[in-house]
């Protein structure tokens, strides 16, 4: 029997292993679920998807990744993040983090540069405009019958608050998600359930990026 005063460490989770030749990393859990669903739709099986716990933790993650068991076997890495207000700034910041760790950097968002390993960068929604992954998904949902309802709702919200929501794309996605069944899905789970129209042209750039990785 173990003395009571010795027991304090909870059972830790099984650590995340690198076990595929290609790696795609996103900011958080939603990105992981969205990418996994899209890769599954595309029939791409050799890309592992991981998250780096938000853009502020990307440098720490890259440092730890380079030491992670199995990293030497990785052939290519795709790094993604949201543009937020500045797509060019986000791209430059991300490339700076990569080059500081002796990783090659591509010429532009959506490109993959050969190297050991090859590295690709994708800034959402399109590498040019400000925004985030949710903007890309909204673009793909453009013809969804709920779009008009969401427009009406946010017109009402803006009138009531005298200002639109700060992160309008995230807010509109949540409004769309609230109209799904069940109504409390996150974007990632909605993607896993097949609610995102992957064949929409809005995903062409991301499709090309993942195929090139």
């Amino acid at each position, binding site marked *: 029997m*173990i003395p009571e*005063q010795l027991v304090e*460490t909870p*059972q830790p989770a099984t650590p995340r292993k690198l076990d595929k030749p290609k790696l795609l990393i996103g900011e958080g859990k939603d990105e992981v679920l969205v990418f996994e669903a899209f890769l599954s739709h595309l029939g791409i099986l050799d890309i592992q998807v991981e998250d780096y716990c938000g853009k502020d*933790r990307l440098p720490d993650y890259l440092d*730890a990744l380079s030491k992670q068991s*199995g990293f*030497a076997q990785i052939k290519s890495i795709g790094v993604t993040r949201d543009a937020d207000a500045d797509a060019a700034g986000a791209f430059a910041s991300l490339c700076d983090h990569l080059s500081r760790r002796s990783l090659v950097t591509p010429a532009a968002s959506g490109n993959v540069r050969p190297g050991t390993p090859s590295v690709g960068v994708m800034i959402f929604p399109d590498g040019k405009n400000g925004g985030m992954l949710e903007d890309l998904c909204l673009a793909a949902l453009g013809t969804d019958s709920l779009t008009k309802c969401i427009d009406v709702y946010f017109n009402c919200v803006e009138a009531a608050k005298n200002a639109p929501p700060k992160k309008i794309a995230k807010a509109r996605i949540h409004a769309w998600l609230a109209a799904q069944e069940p109504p409390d899905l996150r974007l990632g789970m909605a993607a896993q359930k097949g609610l995102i129209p992957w064949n929409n042209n809005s995903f062409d750039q991301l499709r090309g990026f993942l195929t090139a990785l």
Partner: protein
Amino acid sequence: MIHSFHIKNYRGFSDFKIEPLEQVNLIAGSNNVGKTSLLEGLYLNIGPAAAFSSNLDSNPDESSTRHNIFRGFKDIGYQLDNVVKWGWLFYGKDLSKNVELASTLRDGRVQEITMGWWIEHKSGDVPLTSDIPFDDLKTLYLKATAKYIDGSEQKWRIDRSGHRLPENYIFDSTPLRLLFNVSSRSPQEDTKWFSKLADVGREDEVVNTLRVIEPRLKDLAVSTSDGPAMIYGDIGVGRRVPMSQMGEGMVRLLSLVLEIANASGGIVLVDEVENGLHHSVLTNVWKAIRTAARQWNTQLFATTHSWECIRAAHEAFSDSGPYDLGLHRLERNNGDIKAVTYDKKTLETSVEMNLEVR
């Protein structure tokens, strides 16, 4: 304190370096990647006199003074009746290349061990090279040379007739202890090492260390009242309790602390440190090991397969004082073994993000 260790042409290591080394070093990696070989190499480097001259060792009953004990061979012997037994020590079994084991201390001093095969010739012995055929084992011998940190040197010769001891025998100066086969460790062995500390009045330091995980412990004492000499602990329940009755975790920790204490100023090598320890006690066990290693200024090298063990060690060393823990994973890359060393920051990130480090 060893800062770096360099291995050439030894077992699976072609040209291998591990640095920086900390006070406590965890060695991880998949099976058969060379973790035990690394401990073995350290053993040969730090304790060559014990390794090559065990019959002169001050404790001849300790079969662990022979390096092959790491492989479960208790009495491989020094006779060169089977070259293959010693050929295992050479990278790719290539006997034409010398084994080189070099440890560099933090102050820059180096201790180096070389082992190579030589052939006797009337006109003067020559090193075995790949282009010199030999068909008579009588002429072949293994020469081991130790260059100590103080500049002194001694040589051993191992041939068919056994091993010839060097003139002006020099004892190893760095204390060295091994702990690898837990299941075969007897309470009497712990009793012996505890008594050595008690003889110099340092038993209270062991008690203080064990209190990290057993605050009720008042003192330890050796008693023969129930038979063979054993260590008993006073935990305030009236009669003293045999340590063996306090659970496997306490017994394992006592063994670890005693090894650390008895190698004060030196090195302890531990194979599969997590053996016998439940994951829930590991953080406190590492706190005790941390305390003991600092107290006795002992450097520890321990292999592990356990993620829980690594996490617990990180938590314990983050808790107080300098972060003198190093995690080193051995891995094969294009056939060669290399060490991937984590510092506090990268291990912290890996623990927080639950990334595989083993």
